């Protein structure tokens, strides 16, 4: 049908209204042809009688009430899908921007996706190795999981994202093809360049499919970016049986674009001006992770968001964490002390970890080490707050041992180099070494037998000598 509607009734921010239309479907895609020959894409967001409201992806700059012709496609937004999408770069609406021409589609995919039937899901097991000790040991990333990174402005989340892309790999059975879909929403130009350059330098770009929406690009396109990326990911995972890791940054820009869009539509705002459906909307993205019966692939998500004002109770991190299966949280104090990646162990959590580690996946003692490290580090915080009141000298011996453990743990375990890719064995052994700096009777989360087998104060010797000489010279060690 090539019925063209001439002119518009109304323009408001990214929204335009048409009158006198008929046969238009909710959520369908329309092309707006301007008099100068350029074309823009719009989506139907509201229908009332013979009036249709469209959101224009490329923004409404230069559109007047008279200079457009609108053609409705009768279809929802679809993007071309093919295995050759790997190694390519697209804009937020799924158009190639790397100058290599269009992708020859194997099929077209509706970007909205559909809800996955819980019966058809498989419970995620087995892990993705990131080579980063804190993540692998304490908040293990499981295939099919959605595990966001909560960061703040100026922290090293971008660096961490690059390192994960660079090092992520699968191990063990069914580790088939592994690839990464990277969606950047509202990132600055130089940050986008940093990602592109890093992927090229590290040789990862062959297995990365990028969707880039810069902070100067239109917000409606930003709302599409994760949809396109996830559609590509689902296609590669569930139809091509690949294991796909989707990294989405920055979800805060996405949510802000949603707020802008909602307010220009005149909707009633919920908390902090975000629309009442922010939860459902975020869920419609995050829930597109998982493992599906009948396919050997998986979609794993790492959404990255910057917490406004480092506030974890802000609606964006708060709602995200209610949907996702855990969270990895950056800590500004650690970051400023030069610990990279400065992750807050106590605030971080991977909910699916318990079923994807241990015998047959990582190592039999993984759970025990991780429980004990958590518990010990929690006690470090108690000791520190006590020390800040009564002074470190007044602490009991046990508390002082915890203070020492805390420092060593942060400097040696959390802290690691950008190029340091630690194996699971290295990470867990390092965990044991550090635990051995504590008295044996303090390790109450570990089964006696395992403890007898592994506990050996000699393992801790290298740290204790260092710590001794450090405190003599008044410096703290910074490794890596």
């Amino acid at each position, binding site marked *: 049908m090539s019925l063209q509607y001439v002119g518009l009734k109304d323009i408001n921010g990214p929204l335009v209204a048409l009158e006198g239309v008929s046969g238009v479907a909710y959520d369908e895609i329309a092309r707006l042809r301007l008099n100068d020959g350029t074309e823009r894409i719009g989506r139907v967001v509201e229908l009332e009688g013979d009036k249709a409201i469209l959101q224009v992806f490329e923004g409404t700059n230069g559109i007047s009430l008279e200079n457009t012709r609108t053609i409705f496609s009768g279809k929802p937004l679809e993007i071309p899908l093919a295995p050759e999408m790997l190694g390519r770069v697209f804009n937020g609406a799924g158009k190639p921007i790397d100058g290599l021409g269009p992708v020859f589609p194997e099929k077209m995919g509706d970007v909205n996706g559909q809800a996955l039937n819980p019966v058809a899901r498989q419970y995620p097991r087995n892990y993705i190795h990131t080579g980063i000790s804190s993540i692998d040991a304490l908040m293990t990333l499981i295939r099919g999981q959605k595990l966001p990174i909560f960061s703040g402005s100026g922290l090293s989340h971008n660096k961490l994202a690059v390192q994960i892309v660079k090092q992520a790999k699968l191990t063990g059975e069914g580790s088939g093809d592994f690839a990464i879909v990277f969606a950047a929403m509202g990132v600055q130009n130089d940050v986008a360049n940093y990602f592109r350059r890093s992927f090229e330098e590290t040789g990862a770009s062959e297995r990365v499919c990028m969707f880039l929406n810069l902070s100067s690009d239109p917000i409606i396109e930003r709302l599409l970016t994760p949809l396109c990326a996830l559609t590509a990911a689902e296609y590669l995972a569930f139809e091509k049986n690949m294991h796909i890791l989707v990294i989405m940054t920055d979800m805060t820009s996405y949510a802000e674009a949603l707020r802008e869009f909602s307010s220009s539509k005149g909707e009633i705002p919920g908390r902090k001006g975000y629309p009442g459906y922010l939860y*459902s909307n975020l869920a419609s993205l995050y829930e597109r992770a998982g493992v599906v019966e009948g396919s050997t692939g998986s979609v794993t998500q790492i959404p990255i968001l910057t917490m406004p004002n480092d506030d974890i109770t802000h609606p964006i991190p708060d709602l995200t964490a209610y949907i996702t299966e855990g969270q990895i949280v950056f800590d500004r104090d650690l970051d400023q002390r030069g610990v990279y990646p400065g992750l807050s162990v106590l605030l971080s959590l991977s*909910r699916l970890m318990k079923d994807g580690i241990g015998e047959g996946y990582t190592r039999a003692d993984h759970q025990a080490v991780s429980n004990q490290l958590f518990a010990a580090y929690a006690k470090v915080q108690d000791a520190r707050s006590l020390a800040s009141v009564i002074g470190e000298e007044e602490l009991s011996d046990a508390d002082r041992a915890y203070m020492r453990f805390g420092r060593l743990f942060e400097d040696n375990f959390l802290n690691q180099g950008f190029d340091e890719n630690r194996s699971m064995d290295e990470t867990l052994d390092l965990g044991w070494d550090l635990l051995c700096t504590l008295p044996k009777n303090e390790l109450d989360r570990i089964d006696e037998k395992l403890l007898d087998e592994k506990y050996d104060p000699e393992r801790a010797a290298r740290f204790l000598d260092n710590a001794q000489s450090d405190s003599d010279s008044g410096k703290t060690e910074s490794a890596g």
Partner: protein
Amino acid sequence: MNILNNTIYSINGPVVKAADTKDFSMLEMVYVGNKRLIGEVIGVTDKFTTIQVYENTAGLKIGEPIESTGQPVCATLGPGIISNIFDGIERPLRDMTKLNGAFVAEGNALFSLDTEKKYDVTVTVKVGDKLKAGDIYCTCPETALITHKCMVPPNVSGEVVFAADNGQYQVNDTIIKLKFEDGTEMPLTMVQKWPIKKARPIANRLPINRPLITGQRVIDTLIPIAKGGAAAIPGGFGTGKTMTQHQLAKWCDADIIVYIGCGERGNEMTQVLEEFSELIDPKSNRPLTDRTVLIANTSNMPVAAREASIYTGITLAEYYRDMGYHIAIMADSTSRWAEALREISGRLEEMPAEEGFPAYLPSRLSEFYERAGYVKNLNDTEGSVTIIGAVSPQGSDFSEPVTQNTKRFVRCFWALDKSLAYARHYPAIDWNQSYSEYIEDLSAYFNENVSSDFMDLRQEISNILQEETKLMEIVKLIGADVLPDDQKLAIETARVVRVGFLQQNAYHKDDTYVPLEKQMLMMKVIVNLYHKSLEALKLGVMLSDILAMGLFDKAVKIKYDIPNDKLGMFDDYLKEIDEKIGGLAV
């Protein structure tokens, strides 16, 4: 009625309007569009009829037909509900995968129950019997654990003029025919329908005085819930709401569990499905799925169906209650349900109250929680519905509207605390903020059925925790070393209570479920240890000497060291305490 020229006038997300029609009534179920999406009328004015659609509205067009059904949105009730998994409007999700594959598609008006399966039916009435509403006319084994009893629907009564023989029947076969006073006849199959937003009638409510035994120590002894009661579990993300609900669903002594995953994670529902079919209920030796119904409306499924899922769940529960069963409902999470109300309210451009939630939020919440109760049914059996609702407060702030309003309608409040969860103290129920108003009602049960000093022991444990909270204020300022020995003893005992008693390991074979008697004996050991040590201190014994004997550490490990079936071992513990501490004082 059923006029065909009612058409769609406007579409905005899940809200669809029809113009200039007077054919629809409030809360009526309608079919929307050519795909026949299921919807419900939620507003009628002389200009517009407003409909919320339970499925994705993408692709709907202006001018497509809206079809009236003349009846409200109903739950289909009959054998085949238990062990099944439904979406928010009771569509069977397993059958949907066969039809549509892995993704949920629109326009499936699937029948909720398996119509092919034959049940072994025993007809319990004969021709000439006079039946009133709620009377049971046939029974059949639904699962190995649950006998399904078909009841005369509420508001119906009459004389039996036909009764089928015992035998194999499908759910839609006619079992009996009833003749009403006016001479008309009505065939009854094994299936009946009931509007989900209306409570099923009962004879009368009974006083609440029996606990729902959960095997979780912090709940059963400190903050118990009664059968027929309502409890809320508020907690920020990561505090273990879902984990706590899973534990309750696995171990509580209800006959049937209705688990509503309302706007939560898909993987969690998969986990419940997998885990519950593998876990064997120790009381019956059958998989837990034999007594569980799942309602899964995950966060990315249509929002209007999320609103309905809570009502569907409670209607199923009430139906089984009418048969004389005790039901526990886990609703995870009521906050997502409230958000669904907010989202639809926003689309209707209603005047918002607090934080954008509609002003009718409290009345909706109270309607839901008031459907809990311990009742005498129309057929003189007794049954109960216990509601346990998770609340996900935004920003872990308990002053937000959903938590605050829920607090007004539940009598049991299990507040989950972030700092406990960070310290990996699970279940992270904060004993200071939580409360149960059922303690008075239940004390007689505990004293008579467990031990006559149960409530006294509970009070002692509670006092020790209170004392610790008070002392910790001082310790935070000046450290523990300066305290006198008796206060140090209180802190040490409180540690035993916290680590050895309140913390419970869901992954340990004995500790995941602890019978009431063991809970009582554990309290007894701790209280005894405290008293004996206190006496010894008064006689001048040093606390460090008492601690050096390792009795406190031993008490912490009781939960692992004494298996649930060897409670005789407690005598040795009590004796050892008497002897060792008594020995010091000499």
